[in-house]
């Protein structure tokens, strides 16, 4: 078929084929996400599996998220101090640190850490189950993998990430506090008072709403790419890579959409 097309039209053929391929992938992903969400809200729910995944996805991610938050808060405070000093606005360090951490950096960085640690892990685990016929075995034992494997991971990520982000917010602000009081000569009590006076519940709530959505993205990407892996070890490796990359891109894209939406509704 391709040989019949004049050479100068080939680029259009490539663009068309790529567009179709992207739309097909988007359609498959949407159908997969729909099935996961239906499985997540209709019985039977595997409650013990959800709890087990909360431990794996949430609890064991706490150290990496905490470390990311404290260094980010500290670096953010230094940068704001350097930038603010150009306008004699150094005193706004606590205000901008808490705003930056709760509204933007907390949810985005925690989600990116989860994309690296959890999405890749889910994709590798499910991919291995696929290539070793464990998913087929589930089917023969009358168990739907959407209910037994994917929905618990989806719930665990959606529930865990907001809690992780809340903790990251506190640790991130503390990182800013340590640097500001340790090297920038801020008064500790003044720093805390400025932080508490400036941050609002909607700042924190907005970050946690973002976190729940990012958690869903991380779990879905891991499950989707894992369940589509083929061809042994290399296929599983490719699935893990795709899960991380697609999670990260979708986190940034949805962060932009959510920030725009929150700005419009005044959250």
């Amino acid at each position, binding site marked *: 078929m391709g040989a019949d097309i004049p050479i100068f039209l080939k680029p259009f053929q490539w663009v068309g084929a790529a567009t179709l391929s992207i739309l097909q992938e988007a359609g498959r992903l949407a159908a997969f996400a729909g099935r996961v969400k239906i499985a997540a809200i209709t019985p039977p729910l595997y409650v013990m599996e959800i709890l087990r995944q909360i431990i794996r996805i949430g609890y064991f991610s706490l150290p990496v998220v905490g470390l990311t938050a404290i260094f980010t808060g500290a670096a953010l405070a230094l940068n704001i101090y350097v930038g603010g000093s150009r306008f004699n606005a150094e005193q706004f360090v606590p205000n901008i640190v808490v705003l930056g951490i709760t509204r933007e950096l907390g949810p985005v960085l925690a989600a990116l850490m989860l994309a690296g640690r959890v999405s890749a892990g889910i994709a590798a685990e499910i991919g291995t189950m696929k290539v070793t016929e464990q998913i*087929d075995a589930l*089917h023969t034992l*009358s168990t739907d993998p959407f209910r037994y494997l994917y929905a618990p991971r989806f719930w665990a990520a959606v529930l865990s990430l907001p809690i992780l982000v809340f903790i990251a917010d506190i640790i991130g602000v503390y990182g800013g506090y340590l640097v500001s009081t340790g090297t920038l000569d801020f008064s500790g009590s003044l720093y805390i008072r400025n932080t508490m006076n400036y941050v609002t519940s909607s700042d924190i709530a907005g970050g946690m709403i973002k976190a729940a959505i990012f958690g869903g993205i991380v779990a879905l990407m891991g499950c989707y790419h894992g369940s589509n892996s083929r061809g042994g070890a290399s296929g599983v490796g490719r699935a893990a890579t795709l899960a991380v990359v697609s999670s990260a891109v979708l986190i940034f894209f949805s962060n932009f959409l959510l920030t725009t939406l929150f700005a419009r509704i005044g959250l």
Partner: protein
Amino acid sequence: MTDILLQLKDVHKAFGPKHVLNGFDIDVAPGKSLVIIGGSGTGKSVSLKCALGLMAPDKGEIFFDGKKLTHNDRAAREAMLKRTGMLFQGAALFDSLPIWKNVAFRLLHHSKMSGSDAKDLAIQTLQKVRLSAEVADLYPSELSGGMQKRVGLARAIATEPDLIFFDEPTTGLDPITADAINDLIVEQVKGLGAASVSITHDMPSARKIGDEIAMLFDGKIIWRGPADSVDDSGNAYVDQFVHGRADGPIQPAM
């Protein structure tokens, strides 16, 4: 129960231009053991996956105990799966679960049996396949290949099914372990009075497990007969395969 427990009629399955099954027909009576032999890539596993509903055939009909199964009829498929067991080629044990939960998986998730009763039953079933109770709390990665196959067999027979599928049950095992697995399969299948469908290219296994042997070639069954007649089938394809000769009508898959 009907005279024929499982029947596949004129099943076709293609992957792109490659026609793997091309008018595949088999039937299995209750309590009988059928072994399907054939070379690599001839569609043995695909035929099993179609029978189990893991793959939708492009064309053809599948009946279980007289009821027609379609890929979208989940109730009929569930009714069939409740009465079947499956031993996968690599055992396909769930590596996040201890052995006893693997064996009792269906009982834990699809019956009202308590955890302790399910564990007791799992241990009894493990003993049937010559594994001790100490194995129950280990994880699959802590077992050898032969032991994993035994656990897979225990999982397949735990609910006392009417039909058991075996996908290359002896592949990857040394001859002695393979023979031990064959003995266990015969003992357990006959003990349950179940029917079985096995696919293999291991002739000693086929001769030992099967009441009947069928040869799959070019997407369809080209010969079927009693297991003890496979050596003098009068079919050139079967003769070449059974005697493992490179020369003959079948071209080596290289």
